[in-house]
């Protein structure tokens, strides 16, 4: 936001509503993912049900952001920075809503994974991957609040770590499946969970790029890191 207020103060209130709602959606999405991973690891079905129900809130807020944003566009005919801010808000709301969906999907798999008691080591990789993604999400929300676009490049480059970790986890889970076919069912679900977390990282990168555009009007320079090599992973049978 600019340091000067609009002549029409209601316009400022409308923009503030949108950015406050994004901050709330971000916090909510962060909690959903965090708790979904906890529910998965602990096999907590009650918690997973709460998370699944919680997703409706994000869906509702996203619709609200879009409705309000359209109304602001119609009423105020925003220009320049304000226009970028509003369009950016809609895009970020959609990314956050998707992050919520991915969290919900992890929560849904809790039941299937915990049907048979799994050794803890199976979860370790997923947990570590989730920690990385959650840290990224927290930081991108901080950047949304403080508009320190200079931090964005570092954040985006760190998505590489998530991709690398995901590739190694992919390999690890394949290995467990080959060791003992009874692991296949749980490991397949865990693999989807890992994929979901990796996708969350991608949405965080989208959000970071959107914030950069909102603030500067320019696209973030340079290529996104593409270190995701899991599509080439093969584990040979012994």
């Amino acid at each position: 936001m600019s340091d000067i207020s609009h002549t029409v103060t209601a316009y400022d209130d409308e923009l503030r509503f949108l950015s406050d709602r994004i901050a709330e959606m971000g916090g909510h999405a962060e909690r959903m993912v965090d708790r979904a991973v906890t529910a998965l690891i602990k096999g907590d079905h009650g918690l997973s049900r709460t998370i699944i129900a919680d997703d409706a809130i994000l869906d509702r807020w996203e619709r609200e952001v879009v409705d309000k944003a359209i109304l602001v566009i119609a009423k105020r005919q925003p220009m320049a920075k304000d226009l970028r801010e509003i369009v950016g808000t809609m895009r970020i709301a959609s990314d956050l809503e998707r992050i919520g969906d991915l969290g919900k999907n992890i929560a849904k798999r809790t039941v299937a994974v915990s049907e048979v008691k799994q050794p803890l080591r199976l979860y370790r990789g997923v947990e570590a991957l989730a920690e990385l993604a959650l840290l990224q999400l927290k930081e991108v929300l901080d950047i949304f609040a403080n508009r320190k676009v200079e931090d964005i490049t570092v954040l985006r480059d760190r998505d590489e770590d998530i991709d690398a970790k995901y590739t190694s986890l992919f390999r690890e889970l394949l290995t467990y499946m080959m060791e003992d076919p009874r692991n296949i069912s749980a490991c397949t679900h865990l693999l989807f969970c890992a994929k979901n977390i990796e996708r969350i990282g991608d949405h965080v990168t989208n959000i970071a790029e959107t914030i950069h555009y909102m603030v500067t009007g320019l696209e973030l320079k340079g290529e996104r890191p593409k270190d995701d090599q899991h599509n080439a992973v093969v584990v040979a049978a012994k």
Partner: protein
Amino acid sequence: MNDMSTAEIAATTAPAKITARNVQVYYGATHAIKNVSVDILDKAVTAFIGPSGCGKSTFLRCINRMNDTISVCRVEGKIEIEGEDIYDRRVDPVQLRAKVGMVFQKPNPFPKSIYDNVAYGPKIHGLTRNKAELDEVVETSLKKAALWNEVKDRLASPGTGLSGGQQQRLCIARAIATHPEVLLMDEPCSALDPIATAQVEELIDELRSQFSVVIVTHSMQQAARVSQRTAMFHLGELVEIDATETIFTNPSHKKTQDYITGRYG
């Protein structure tokens, strides 16, 4: 405006139709235009925006020497149209205004028939040799102004009997009847309803293929819709001139940003 942006503008596309250099305008002791240098392109619409009193209309009026009629007004610097200094002593302001047409905020048709409104300019400038030629000019001008179909059966009726939007298009027809090279418009739609505004905007878009159009507007959306280049004025200075899409999505200057987003003090 710094030299860098002048160079950038010069490099944009076609050569400039109007070149203004270090233009100063004084109303008595008031310094209304401060050292404005700008290139205005041919076959394009340039919008002048800025808060009231920023000098955009004053500067527009310099381009056809309308300020000459104000006794306390003094213009310094140089304005050239295709290399010809329009403030040169040998230039006849009346001839100049045939070349640089103007449309005002309020439609101001003469208290004459629709036909005579359009025929007036060509007649006094002796642009036609006979009635048939004059008829031809009137018809073409009204057609270009997208008014012909609405008035062709009542050319003898008074121009003042038309609706506001039609009157404004009649004024545009009158302005283009003398075959000008430049068309200046000072808030041409501010007295019109949205439909008449849309018709005039559509017309401006068509006229741009033949003229260099300069439009002063208080509507940011209008500037964004009709122009290819936008110049922002503030307190008599040119803040910046750039491609319209850049001005309205990502302007370089904070003053422009604040003004177009409605944050002006």
